[in-house]
C-alpha cells in the first residue's frame, strides 16, 4: 500500500513538475515582487506593467510589496522562491550593485539572479536655483567656498553619483545628506539652503521653467548627447564617462529558471512595454521607457558592476 502511495505521489509530482514548464504561465498567478512600499517609482512602474503583461500572457500578475533593507529584502524573497517563473521581481539598480561592491552582505549575489529585462532608464542632471546666477559647472565650483549639494541617504544612488561625479570633475563639494525624499532635497536648493543637486531629470522636470514651476534650472545633464536643448551634456564638458550614472528599472528572477520560461517572461515584458496603455502612461509621467532583453540586461549588469568597482573607494562613505 505504502509503495503504491509513494509511486502515485511521485507520478503526480512528475506530472505537475513537467507541466509547469510546458504550460507556463497557465498553472498559476505570476507574483511580481516590488522591494518598496506602495506609491513610489518602483511600485508605479510595476503596477503599470502588470495589467499589460496580463493582456499579453493571458495569466494574472499580482504585484506584491516586500519592502525593507534598501530593496535587499524584496530581492532576497525572489531569490529564495522556486525557479518556475511564477515569482519575478524588480530590482533597485544600481543601489544593490553599489552595496555589493562595498562588500555589504545583502543575502544574495546579483550575478546569480536570472536577469529578464530592463524596463526603463532614468538619467541624471545637475540643477541649481533659477535665480542663483550660476550657469555652469565652472561657476558652481568657483564660488569661493565648497559648493553644497543636497541628497537623501549617503548610500542613495543620487548621493553616490554626486560624490563620484564631482571627484571626477576635480571639484571639492559638501554633500548634505539626510533629506527625507528627493523632493525635499530639491526644495533645499530652491530655499537656498544648498547650492545644487543631482537628481533624475524626470524628478527635476516639475521645477524647471518649461511647463514646471521655474524654480530650478539645469546646468549639466549626465548624458552622452544633448538631452535638453541648451544644457551642456557630459560629453560637452569632456567627461562622457559621467553618462554611466543612471537609475535602472531591472527585472529578474531566482537562479535557475529554465530557458523556455525565461523567453516567455521576456516576451511578456517586451509586449507589455509596447502596450498602448503603458506607452501613454510613460509619456504623461515622463518615465524614460527603454526595453532591453535578457542578454543586453545581463551585459549591462556586468558592466555596471565593473564600473562601480573602479570607484569603490569613493562609494564607501565615512564622516
Amino acid at each position: 500500500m505504502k509503495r503504491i502511495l509513494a509511486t502515485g505521489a511521485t507520478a503526480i509530482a512528475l506530472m505537475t513538475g513537467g507541466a509547469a514548464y510546458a504550460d507556463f504561465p497557465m498553472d498559476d498567478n505570476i507574483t511580481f515582487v516590488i522591494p518598496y512600499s506602495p506609491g513610489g517609482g518602483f511600485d508605479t512602474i510595476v503596477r503599470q506593467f502588470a495589467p499589460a503583461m496580463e493582456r499579453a500572457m493571458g495569466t494574472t500578475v499580482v504585484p506584491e510589496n516586500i519592502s525593507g533593507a534598501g530593496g535587499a529584502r524584496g530581492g532576497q524573497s525572489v531569490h529564495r522562491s522556486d525557479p518556475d517563473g511564477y515569482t519575478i521581481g524588480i530590482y533597485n539598480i544600481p543601489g544593490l550593485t553599489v552595496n555589493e561592491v562595498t562588500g555589504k552582505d545583502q543575502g544574495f549575489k546579483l550575478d546569480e539572479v536570472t536577469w529578464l529585462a530592463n524596463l526603463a532608464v532614468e538619467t541624471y542632471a545637475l540643477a541649481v536655483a533659477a535665480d542663483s546666477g550660476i550657469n555652469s559647472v565652472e561657476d558652481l565650483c568657483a564660488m569661493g567656498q565648497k559648493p553644497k549639494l543636497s541628497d537623501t541617504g549617503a548610500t542613495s544612488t543620487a548621493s553616490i553619483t554626486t560624490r563620484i561625479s564631482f571627484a571626477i570633475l576635480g571639484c571639492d563639494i559638501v554633500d548634505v545628506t539626510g533629506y527625507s525624499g528627493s523632493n525635499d532635497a530639491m526644495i533645499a536648493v530652491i530655499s537656498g539652503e544648498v547650492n545644487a543637486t543631482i537628481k533624475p531629470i524626470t524628478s527635476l522636470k516639475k521645477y524647471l521653467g518649461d511647463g514646471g514651476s521655474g524654480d530650478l534650472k539645469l546646468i549639466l545633464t549626465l548624458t552622452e548627447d544633448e538631452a535638453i536643448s541648451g544644457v551642456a551634456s557630459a560629453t560637452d564638458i569632456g567627461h562622457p564617462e559621467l553618462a554611466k550614472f543612471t537609475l535602472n528599472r531591472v527585472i529578474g528572477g531566482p537562479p535557475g529558471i529554465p530557458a523556455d520560461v525565461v523567453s516567455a517572461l521576456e516576451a511578456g515584458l517586451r509586449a507589455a512595454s509596447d502596450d498602448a496603455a503603458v506607452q501613454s502612461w510613460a509619456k504623461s509621467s515622463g518615465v524614460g521607457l527603454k526595453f532591453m532583453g535578457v542578454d543586453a540586461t545581463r551585459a549591462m549588469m556586468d558592466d555596471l558592476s565593473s564600473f562601480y568597482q573602479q570607484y569603490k573607494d569613493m562609494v564607501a562613505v565615512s564622516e
Partner: protein
Amino acid sequence: MGLDVLFDAFVSVFNGGSLTFLIAGVLLGLTFGVIPGLGGTTALALLIPVTYTLQPLDAMYLAGGVMGATSFGGSISAILLNTPGTAPNAATTFDGYPLARQGKAGMAIGASATASAMGGLIGLFTLLLFIPVAREVVLSFGSAEFFLLTILGLAAIAVSVKGKLLRGLLAACIGLLLAFTGANQFTGETRFTGGINYLWDGIPLVPALTGLFAISQMIELALKGGAVADSEAYSEAKNMKITGVSEGVFAVFKHWPVLLRGSLIGTIIGAIPGLGGTVAAFLSYSSTAQTAKDRDTFGKGNIKGVIAPEAANNAKDGGSLIPTVAFGIPGSAETAVFLGILVLHGIEPGPQILLQNEREIYGLIVALTVSAIGASLLGLIFARVLVLITRIDVNIVVPVVVTLSLTGVYVLEGRMADVAVATIIGIVGYLMIRFDYPRLTLVIAFVLGEIAERSYHQVRLISDDNVMGYMLGRPISVILILATIITFFLPAMRKIPWSKLKRSAS
C-alpha cells in the same frame, strides 16, 4: 480661483456615487482607527490596488474619508481601553482613560468627537487661508527649524514629567537608542543592527508604538483581570456608565482656547514633513497641561486633556496638505500614500499640482471636511454601544485586541519580524507600567531622535560648523529657540511668588 472649485467639489460630493465612496472611506477609517496597530496609513496602503480601477476623484473621496475618520476612531479605544487605536491617540489615553474609569466615558467620547470635528474644520480652514502663502511657509522651514522643533518637543516632554525626572530621562535614552538603530544617514554605516538586516531601516514606528501602548496595556489588563471575574479591572469596567455625551460636546466649546491652540499646533506641525500627528498631539497636550491653572488634575481625568490632543490630531490633516499644495510633497505618512494614489492615476505630484489637479486636491479637502464631521456624528450616535466594550470580560477583550493589533502590524508590511518587535516592546512597555517609568518620554525621543540627529548634521554642514550663528540669522529659528528657553524655565518661573514680589516692590 479656489472658492468656486471648492463649491463645485461640495456639490459633486452629494451627487451620484461619490458619497458612497466617501461613506465607505469613513466607515473603513473608523474601523481601522479603532483597532490598535491599524491606522490611516495602513488603510490607505491597502486601498491602493483597489483605487486603481476607480476614477481619480472617487479615489480621492475614498482616501479622504479614511484620512478624516481614523484619528477619531483611534480615540475611542484610547479612552475605553487605554490603548490608542492609532499612534497619535496615545496622548488621549492620559486623561481619556481616567475619565472612563470615573464613569465619564460618554463625556470623554463626546468631547473627543467634537474636538476632532472642530479641529479638523479649523485645520482645513487654516489650510484654505494658507494656500496663497503655502510656498513661503514651506520654504521658511529648513533644516535649522526642523532641528529646533525637535528640541522644543523634547524640552516640552522633559518638563512635563513631574517628579519623575530621572525615570523620564532614562526612558528617553532608551527611546533615542531605538531611534538611532539602523543605517546612519550620514555615513551609510549601520548601527546597533547586530548583523540582522531587518534592522537596516531602523525600528519601525507602528510596531513599536503598538507594542508600547496596545500590547503592554493588554498584558496589564490580563494580569489584573486574571481568572477571577470579579477582579479590580473587571469591576472597574462594569461600573463604567455612558452618560454625559452632551456634557462632553459642550465642554469643547466651553474650553475653546484649548481647542484653538490644539488646532493651531496641529496645523503647524502637520505642515512640517516628518513630524506628524503623534508629535502634534503630544505637544498640544503638554502645552495645555503646562499652562493650565488646574494642571495638577491632568492625567487624572481632565476633559481638556482629551480636547487638546484630539483637536491637534485632526487639524494636522489640513496642515499636512500645505506642503502638498505648495510643492506636491507629502506632509504626513497618509498624504505620502495619497500622493502615491495620484501617481497611479497618472498625475505627477509637483509644485504645479494645485494648478493642474485642482479638482482632485479640492475634492480631497471636501472629503476630509465631510469625513471629519461624519465620523464624529457616527461616533456620537454609537457612543452608547461602543462603551459596552468596556463591560466585556477582559478574558475576551485581551485576546481579541492582541490578535487584531498584531495582525494589523503584520498586514502593514507583511513582515513577521514586525510582530516580534511589537511583542518585545510590548513586554518592555508592561515593565515600564509595572515599575512606573513614563512611556511618553520614550515615545517622543523615539519619534524625534532620528530627525533631531539628521537635521543637526545638516545644519552643521550647511552652516560650515557655525551652527549657532546660522540659526540666529533665521527669524523662525530665533522664535523656536526662545520658545524652548521659556519651556525650560516655565516650571521654575511658576514657583516665584510674583504677587509677593509686586507687593514688596510697591
